């Protein structure tokens, strides 16, 4: 929120430097996001009196003598049409800094330093300035908007700095106000805090006005939806003369970024900024039947707001109506039909409290917002609502733009605007903090906050002002105390009185970390991808329409379509990650991700979906192949003390002959394979990519398996190499399992060679295995292993029609 220092000073005598005030505000909970000196870019500009002004022949220029209160008058050439002798103008002397403007003299293009110049042969020692060149708009200083020189008042002292005259010595605090302090969303609200922190008295804005005795016959206000509008105050102002606001008001509005419109509208905007209460002014002539009714909109009821947008409403929306139709979208924007015009002569001011949630919802639902709706959504208090109406009427009188009638209607739900009592134990208040704030400081701080504290022993009684709706229980008092007393008084203690507990990672967390470390040891780096993906990612991997992965949970309000569904597979992002690395010149690499997939029982969501911990592994590059990927999958199995099995499988995004399903204890737990060349091409990948996905959730049941030591054999092991010739379509896995199953002493079967060739037959292949036999309690007898080999060969022949290669 923008707070000009000069405005703040209306309510508090601030005798500290802006930077000191910034620190004080910071300390008590109001971070100044930016402290901006309005004239910080302007320097060296003084009041100058033009004493001589002669045209330079054949040009639009004049050469002037300018008195700047020191030494000889300066010779300055000037092209402005309003330069003349006898008037005072801002003079940027040599070395001064002002804004540079484009050829139109209006568009600011950075800053410039003034140097000695020469124009048409005339030396020029400075520059006479326009408002734009000094960063002063018409609203900030009357006359500054003229496209020519800014004319200074005759009583300006020659040679003095122009900044105070033009209001350029102003500081603007951009203060961030936390959501619990809507009462500070105004200059006056901040002033209360400043008064408390500087321990200065607070001056209340002038709320006085005199009613004219005039009344508006038959004027009526009804509130049909008090649950959305607990307070509605209307006051009729007669004899309105629409015109410009005075310069001081325009300037203040300009400083906080609001354009002046007309006196009545400016008053409502001024009060929004000054007190934080949004107000509205209706042209009374357009209120049919001379009445106001606050009600829920009818289904499909229409309104056109001031910005000429039409909205179709429903009963969730609150509207202000006259006797016939809606004239405002409550708290958000007035209707075009009752806006203040130049011809307006009677006005009904509105100051109301609308429930913040309803305003927020309507504003969001309609996509229509304003400074008012933003303010209402944060919450206004009725104390301020009442104050705001009085202040508005005072300003009407002060500006002389109308007569305050005696027609005043206050419809309220009986909420008190008086301070409410809160009692607390001083000890409990201190216990929250862990330190004891001295009683005299408690008293001082709470008095400064206007809480009227009374302390009797341990009992603290405070009167909470009605605008402090955030104060609910004693920890709130603790917070008020410490933010004013200073957090530097907190003495760090390391959980002094806390019970000793045991803690640490769960089995699942430890295991997941182990899996990650295992993969790192395989050369794979961990990636983290978003939990949401694009529906087009599911198309990329060619999932059929009825695939389970298509049943993804949709985000109702996604940032964009690319981030709109919760992922049901980790594969597309892994493919993208590999593609991205290649595009950036990394032509090989290994990646993994351990994250959740989201599986919903039913859509739309009725219950928590299943967040399934899932592992994806990717490998790409000329040195990678199915089996390098498999080595990582195997490493994962090993890290879990598990054995995985593999079967040929099909996936729409994987190579039809290089894809496996991964099983653990016969349960399918994942898949792996080479991504299709089509996807590789779609991702602009030069080298092949391989991807695996493992459902860790189904492996969680095995996480508790502990490693078990197998005693080393007491007797020598024996190894035999067997080259087996079999049909080509027999798999290595089948042969291995026959070999293992044939003899209980077989402890290891390692493939070491594959051969295909005419010698063994066109449709045959030879797989050569090293088979390890480990003896049990006694050594192998003579010829025992040969017997086992014979058994193995017999079984191979029987089951696979495979034979020892001759």
């Amino acid at each position, binding site marked *: 929120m923008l707070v000009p220092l000069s405005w703040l000073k209306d309510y508090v005598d601030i005798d500290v430097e802006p930077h000191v005030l910034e620190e004080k505000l910071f300390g008590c*909970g109001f971070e100044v996001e930016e402290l901006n000196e309005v004239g910080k870019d302007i320097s060296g500009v003084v009041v100058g009196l033009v004493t001589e002004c002669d045209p330079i022949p054949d040009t639009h220029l004049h050469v002037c003598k300018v008195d700047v209160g020191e030494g000889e008058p300066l010779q300055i050439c000037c092209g402005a049409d309003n330069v003349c002798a006898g008037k005072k103008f801002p003079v940027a002397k040599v070395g001064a800094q002002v804004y540079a403007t484009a050829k139109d003299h209006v568009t600011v293009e950075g800053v410039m330093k003034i140097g000695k110049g020469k124009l048409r042969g005339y030396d020029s020692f400075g520059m006479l300035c326009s408002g734009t060149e000094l960063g002063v708009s018409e609203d900030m200083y009357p006359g500054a908007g003229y496209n020519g020189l800014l004319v200074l008042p005759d009583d300006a002292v020659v040679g003095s700095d122009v900044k105070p005259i033009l209001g350029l010595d102003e500081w603007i605090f951009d203060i961030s106000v*936390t*959501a*619990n302090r809507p009462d500070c969303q105004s200059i006056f609200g901040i002033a209360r805090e400043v008064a408390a922190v500087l321990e200065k008295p607070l001056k209340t804005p002038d709320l006085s006005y005199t009613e004219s005795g005039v009344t508006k016959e038959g004027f009526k206000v009804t509130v049909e939806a008090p649950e959305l509008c607990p307070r509605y105050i209307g006051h009729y102002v007669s004899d309105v003369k629409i015109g410009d606001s005075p310069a001081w008001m325009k300037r203040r509005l300009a400083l906080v970024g609001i354009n002046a419109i007309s006196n009545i509208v400016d008053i409502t905007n001024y009060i929004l900024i000054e007190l934080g209460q949004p107000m509205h002014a209706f042209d009374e002539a357009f209120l049919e039947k001379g009445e106001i009714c606050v009600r829920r909109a009818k289904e499909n009821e229409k309104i056109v707001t001031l910005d000429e947008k039409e909205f179709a409403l429903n009963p969730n929306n609150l509207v202000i109506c006259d006797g016939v139709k809606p004239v405002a979208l409550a708290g958000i924007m007035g209707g075009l039909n009752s806006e203040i015009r130049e011809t307006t002569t009677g006005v009904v001011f509105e100051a109301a409290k609308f429930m*913040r*949630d309803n305003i*927020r919802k309507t504003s969001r639902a309609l996509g229509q917002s304003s400074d008012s709706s933003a303010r209402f*959504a944060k*919450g206004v208090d009725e104390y301020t609502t009442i104050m705001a109406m009085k202040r508005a009427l005072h300003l009407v009188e002060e500006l002389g733009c109308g007569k305050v009638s005696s027609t005043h209607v206050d419809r309220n739900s009986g909420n008190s605007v008086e301070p409410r009592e809160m009692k607390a134990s001083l000890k409990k208040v201190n*216990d*929250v*903090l*862990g330190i004891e704030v001295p009683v005299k400081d408690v008293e001082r701080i709470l008095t400064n906050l206007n809480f009227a504290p009374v302390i009797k022993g341990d009992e603290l009684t405070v009167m909470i002002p009605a605008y402090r709706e955030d104060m609910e229980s004693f*920890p*709130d008092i*603790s*917070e008020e105390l*410490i*933010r004013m007393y200073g*957090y530097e008084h907190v*003495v*760090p*203690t*390391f*959980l002094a009185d*806390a*019970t000793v507990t*045991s*803690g640490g*990672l769960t089995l699942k*967390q430890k295991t997941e970390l182990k899996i*990650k470390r295992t*993969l*790192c040891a395989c*050369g794979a*780096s*961990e*990636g*983290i*991808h978003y*939990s*949401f993906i694009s529906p087009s990612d599911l198309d990329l991997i060619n999932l059929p329409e009825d695939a389970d992965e298509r049943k993804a949970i949709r*985000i*109702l309000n*996604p*940032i964009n379509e690319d*981030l709109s569904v919760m992922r049901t597979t980790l594969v597309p992002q892994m493919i993208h*990650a590999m593609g991205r*690395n290649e595009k*950036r010149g*990394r032509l090989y690499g*290994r*990646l993994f991700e351990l994250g*959740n997939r*989201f599986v919903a029982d039913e859509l*739309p*969501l*009725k219950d*928590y979906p299943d*967040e399934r911990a899932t592992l994806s592994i990717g490998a790409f590059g000329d040195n990678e192949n199915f089996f390098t990927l498999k080595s990582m999958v195997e490493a994962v199995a090993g890290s879990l003390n598990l054995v995985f099995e593999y079967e040929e499988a099909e996936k729409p995004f994987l190579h039809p002959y290089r894809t496996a399903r991964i099983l653990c204890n016969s349960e399918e737990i994942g898949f792996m394979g080479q991504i299709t060349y089509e996807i590789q091409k779609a991702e602009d990948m030069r080298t092949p990519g391989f991807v695996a996905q493992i459902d860790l959730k189904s492996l969680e049941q095995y996480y508790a398996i502990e490693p078990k030591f197998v005693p080393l054999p007491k007797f020598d092991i024996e190894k035999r190499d067997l080259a087996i010739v079999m049909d080509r379509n027999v798999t290595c896995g089948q042969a291995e399992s026959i070999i293992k199953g044939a003899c209980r002493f077989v402890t290891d079967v390692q493939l070491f060679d594959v051969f295909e060739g005419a010698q063994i037959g066109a449709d045959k292949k030879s797989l050569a295995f090293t088979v390890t036999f480990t003896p049990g309690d006694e050594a192998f007898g003579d010829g025992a292993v040969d017997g086992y080999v014979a058994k193995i060969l017999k079984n191979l022949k029987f089951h696979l029609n495979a034979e020892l290669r001759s």
Partner: protein
Amino acid sequence: MQNLEELKTSIAAIKEEILKGTSDLTNSKEVYEFKKSFLDPKLGKISQLMKGMKDIPGELRADFGKGVNELKNWAGEHFNEIDEKMKAAEAKKRYESEKIDVTMPATHSMKGYLHPVTQIRNRVIDIFASMGFEVVETKEIENDYYNFTALNTPQDHPARDMQDTFYLSPEFLLATQTSAAQIHTMEKKKPPIKMVAAPGKVFRSDDDATHSPMFHQIEGLVVDKKITLCDLQGMLDVLVANLFGEGTKTRLRPSYFPFTEPSVEVDVSCFECGGKGCRLCKGTGWIEVLGAGIVNRKVLENCNIDPDEYSGLAFGCGLERLAMLKYGINNIKMLYESDLRVLEQIDDK
């Protein structure tokens, strides 16, 4: 062989043959073969000579044996000597042939790296685990009650605007904060409670240069008798000293979260400049790292914990922010792109 003269002739001939033959040897293998032709226990020429002993008359046998043994010993030594020389020369040659340029680049074994967020998470978790904190997990998809209402953020609360929420249904949403873990924990467990929730993926509808719609939070909660703001700061001091180095200090300043009262923002003294002011801390000497506070009484009540008997502290902080600060990563988006050039740079303790 009948007499010693004849033997002497034979010995001299063998010696001669050995000496002559050795000069032609070029490698240790030839040495071995040549040696074998004389000293092989069965077929060697010297061994053969020894076999002739049985034909020698008894009185000459001693001299005969002595003569042959001397020859055998001499030959053994002679061959050993040659062999050693030959092997030394061969070793030298082999070493010379294996000369390398030690300045050539190393051969790297493939190594992978944990994600920077995982690394920072592990550090933080280690610290809290050592303090006796349980580590719990958070849900990515939460319901409105746990994400907001139970955390003292009812429907009409303006604090709901502080976080732009992704909704999946009127009831379910993507967790905007890990604080729901506080409620889940307190519903399951009674004090004393010490827990950290991590890793917590959280989501906000915010996507620009400095914001990512998904990021990670770590959430902490202590509920016990007599927990105070002093404990909060004391505990956080330990955390930041561990993360950013001894001597790193914390500063509390007032803030607002619906589920804590009082609420504080926690700044750490700039570990880059030590608090003097630099680019990292934007000249202030302090860096904002986390939000914290004393658990709001209403939150305890919502979990059936008596706020008059127990009090709690809670904190939450963004892991990306910690990782970026600690490792000097300048763009949050880099963390989600799985760019190996990024991932392979960070290898923390």
